[in-house]
Structure formats: C-alpha cells, structure tokens
C-alpha cells in the first residue's frame, strides 16, 4: 500500500489539559526520532506521542484503506529520500499508521518521504479459537508473541499490564480496526495510583470487560488485547495512552500471563 511520512498539522489554537491549563505540545504525525517502541510511555512532554514514523496518505479514501488494512507487524519500506531502502515495521495505529525504523533511518526521514506498506493480517483467524476475533494482527505478530495453548485449552497471552474498564476513553464506539482506544492516563497521580508508570510503548496489555470484536465497547466478561501505540504526559482529558486492538474474545478463553518482555521490540525483533 502507498503511504508517506505525514506532516504535523495544527489548528492554531490551544487545547486544555486535565489540570485546566492551555497546552500546545508535539507528538502527533511526522517523525519522532527520539521516542521509540520499547521506551517508557509517560515521561515525555508530549500529547498523543506517536513513536517513530507516522504514516498517512493525503488522499482520504486511500488513507482509510491504509488505516483499516495495515496490521501490527507488517513490513514497511522507505521508497525515496536519504533513507530509501530502509525497512521498518508497523507497531501500532492512531491518527496514522505508526512505524518503527532503525535509528539511522529515523535520523534522516522527513515528512513527505514515500513508504510502501506490505499489508497482511485483516481476515486472520485463530483456527482453534473461533470466538476470538483478530483485528489488525499480522501473522508475524502472532508468531512473535509466543502464544501457547495451555493444558486446559485456553490461549495463553503474555502481557505487561491489565487495564480496568473504567479507564477506557476515546476510541470507544469506533471500529475495531480504526486507530486505537485511549486509556485515560492524563494525570500523573492516576498513573502512579494505578501502577502504570513502568509501561512501555509497544507493550502488549489486556483490557478487562472490553469487547473489541465488532467495534469497541464495554461488555462484562469479554477481554481485549492490544499494543500500546501512543503515549506522553500531556493529556487532553478523556484521551491518554493509546492501545491498538489486536484481538478480543470471551474472558474464559484466555490465560493472562504477566511478563515484562511482552513488548513489540521483542515480538517483532525491531532493529536498534
């Protein structure tokens, strides 16, 4: 699929953070060269920090196709400019498709550089779990996550953290494949109180009482899994840490295992 490094845009007005302060902060679109998958989510002066490269398409219909069809783990190649030939991986979705490239490529990439996304994953099914819906989850990610079937028949999923339903915010009500769903960490004291200070960009997390099969919403007894796609401390209320859905199904079909290694940097063998 055709894509390009998106340029940041701005309305020319302030937004308001959760402390009632006017804010203008970077993070969305373009290239963030110094915050990458594997780094901590929060300690950045940023709003909706999209790590690495934000890939979009200036044509609305092509942009929508890119949003829906790109999957976490897909290969991305730079087609022109000084980073031409560099290879990266889709690591999440937000307003754009988020791509990690090696550091030497991130240092020279610019908005407008052309990208090729090798999209594969929508339509993926787990043959032994027909009531689990995969969304934006590439075969590469499934292989890399080290998913196992436990002795009792449940799908064992390593995660770094578990999110309670009352923290789910912007992204509810949207399509499962589109962008992500924000966990409303917009104030430092809430991050600390709920123990999420160590969460990293690219972490796989579980979201309780969330049904993300046909859209995203609250449903008791359902579970959704996703990857932490965007971060930053500069939170507009109702937004926060973005989690891109990868699969969802009934709670009893899964065994959640806590593992500090459940991060895309490991699962996708991302280059330094």
């Amino acid at each position, binding site marked *: 699929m055709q894509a390009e490094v998106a340029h940041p845009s701005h309305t020319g007005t302030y937004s308001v953070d959760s402390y009632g302060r006017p804010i203008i902060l970077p993070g969305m679109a373009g290239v963030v060269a110094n915050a990458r998958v594997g780094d901590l989510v929060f300690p950045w002066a940023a709003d909706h920090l999209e790590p690495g490269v934000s890939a979009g398409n200036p044509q609305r219909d092509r942009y929508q196709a890119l949003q829906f069809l790109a999957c976490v783990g897909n290969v991305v190649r730079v087609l022109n400019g000084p980073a031409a030939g560099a290879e990266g991986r889709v690591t999440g979705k937000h307003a754009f498709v988020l791509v990690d490239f090696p550091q030497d490529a991130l240092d020279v990439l610019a908005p407008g550089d052309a990208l090729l996304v090798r999209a594969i994953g929508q339509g993926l099914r787990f043959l032994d779990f027909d009531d689990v819906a995969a969304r934006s989850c590439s075969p590469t990610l499934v292989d890399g996550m080290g998913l196992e079937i436990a002795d009792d028949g449940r799908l064992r999923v390593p995660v770094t953290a578990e999110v309670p339903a009352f923290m789910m915010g912007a992204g*509810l*009500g949207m399509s499962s494949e589109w962008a992500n769903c924000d966990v409303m960490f917009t104030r430092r004291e809430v991050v600390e109180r709920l123990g999420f200070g160590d969460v990293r960009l690219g972490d796989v997390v579980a979201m309780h009482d969330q049904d993300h099969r046909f859209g*995203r919403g609250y449903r008791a007894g359902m579970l959704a899994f996703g990857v932490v796609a965007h971060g930053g401390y500069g939170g507009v209320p109702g937004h926060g840490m973005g989690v891109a859905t990868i699969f969802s199904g009934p709670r009893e079909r899964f065994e959640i295992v806590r593992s500090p290694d459940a991060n895309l940097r490991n699962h996708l063998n991302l280059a330094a």
Partner: protein
Amino acid sequence: MTRATINDTELLRTALVGDVTSPVLGISPYDVSADGVPFVSVGAGGICYTVRVGSAVHGWAADQVEPGASIANPDAAANEALLLHACVGNRVTVRTGAAAGAAGVVTGKHEAFHAYKHVLVHLAADVLEGLVPGDRLLVHASGRGMTVEGLPELACHSLGPELWEAWAPERAGGQVRLRVTRVLAPEVVGMGSGRVSGATSIALQAGADEALDGLRIGDLVAVRDWDATYITGYHEDRVLVGVVSTGDSPVLGNGPATTILLSGPAAALDFEIDAGANLADLLELG
C-alpha cells in the same frame, strides 16, 4: 434549604439559526451491531414524529434516534457556534415554511464521530406535521457563561436559565442539591470522551445495559468519576450531570447520547433521586 442562584443578570440572549436537517448515509448503508450483525441506521437527522422527549430510550428499531426536530447550521463554523451557544431549555422560533411562527424548546445536542453535529428541538406534534427539512429555526440562545453563586468550581454547559429555573436546585451548606433520575458508574461512558464539554454529547454505553434499564429521553442523570470542566474525561472525585438526548444504539461503545449540563467536584454536589427529573416534566413539553 434555599434555592441556588445563578448569575442570570449577566447572561446574554443571542440569536443563532439552524436548519432542519435530513438524514445522511454513506455509499454502503450498513453499520455493524455489537453482535456483528449489519443494520441500516435510522433515527438521526431530520424530523422524528414517533419518538418524543419523555419516550423510553430502548425499544426502537433505530440508532440514537433524535426526538422531534434535528437542526444544524449549514456553515460548519456557524454550526460550531450554534452547538456551543444553544442551551437546553432555550426558546426556539420557526422562521420559515408552513410552521413559521411556532415556538419550540432546545432539548439536547447530538454529535457523531467525524460526522454530523445536531441541536435537538422539541415542537408540538401539530407543528412537526407542518415542518420540513430545510426550514429555518431561530434559537434564542442563553446560558453560556452561567455560574452558580458561591460555587465557582462548578462548570455549566448547555444549561439554559429556563431549565435552571424549572430544575430549581437548592443550596445546603457548601453543596448544590440536584434532582436526577439516577447516578451512574464511570464505565457507563462510551464514545464521547475527550470532547469539548460545552458543544457536545457523550454516549452511555449499551454494554452496561442493566444500569440503563427504564431510562427515558429527557432524563437528567449524573455520572461518577467524570469531569467535564473543559473536555470530557475520567477524573476521580468529580461528577458530571447531563440530560439524555437520544435513544439507544446497536453499536458497541455507543448508546443514548447525553448532553452535558454541568460538572464539578463530587464534594460540592448532592443528588436527590427523582423519577420525575425529566425535561418533559420540568419544561412541560406538550
């Protein structure tokens, strides 16, 4: 206890217009329900004769059905202003068409993500019969800038002085006592977090169904641990109060759109559960 007072002498009354809308659909008519079933969305935009303020939110073959007349200004920036300045309870006058001269009342607002933003207007049944999409309505807007005397930390949104008067909140010590039909848990809020509080609605999630049993359009409701001082979002120890403005939705994470009336510290607000705390009764909508 005494009546809580607002800065009513400071509030402006301004004129904004909106035209009666007509429903819109994409090239594919199908949305997908929470259970993965395709359906055609009915109920938002235009005029609805069947569902009125006071009707149940459940039991309609519809997606967020808007009661009465749904209006918007055709200019996007002017529509943003209409959404910000029109307040629940404000008077409305039909300016053009067969129903010209008839009076109505603003009952709520309804926003769909990346799509329409509507102001909802109650009109008598015989007026609705004469109304058509494109008719122009004048909103006598008042309420933006409202503050509650002695409680500057309360943020008022979409709350007209007409509704404040009818609602008649009372002051007791450092608190304002508000009549609502129910107080809801924070996970009931679905689509609508992160929105500008004054202009818009949030959805009460259908997935949290039992909490919404018996809910009616026009019900005043409170949600714990949510703040809407500027932008809607989770905030422990705060609470928001809104009015249910549309019917339920088959879409995951959606449900009855609820227009925000005010928000503030939980310690400053006290709630009296009153099944009659509904716009149909409070504003005597005929």
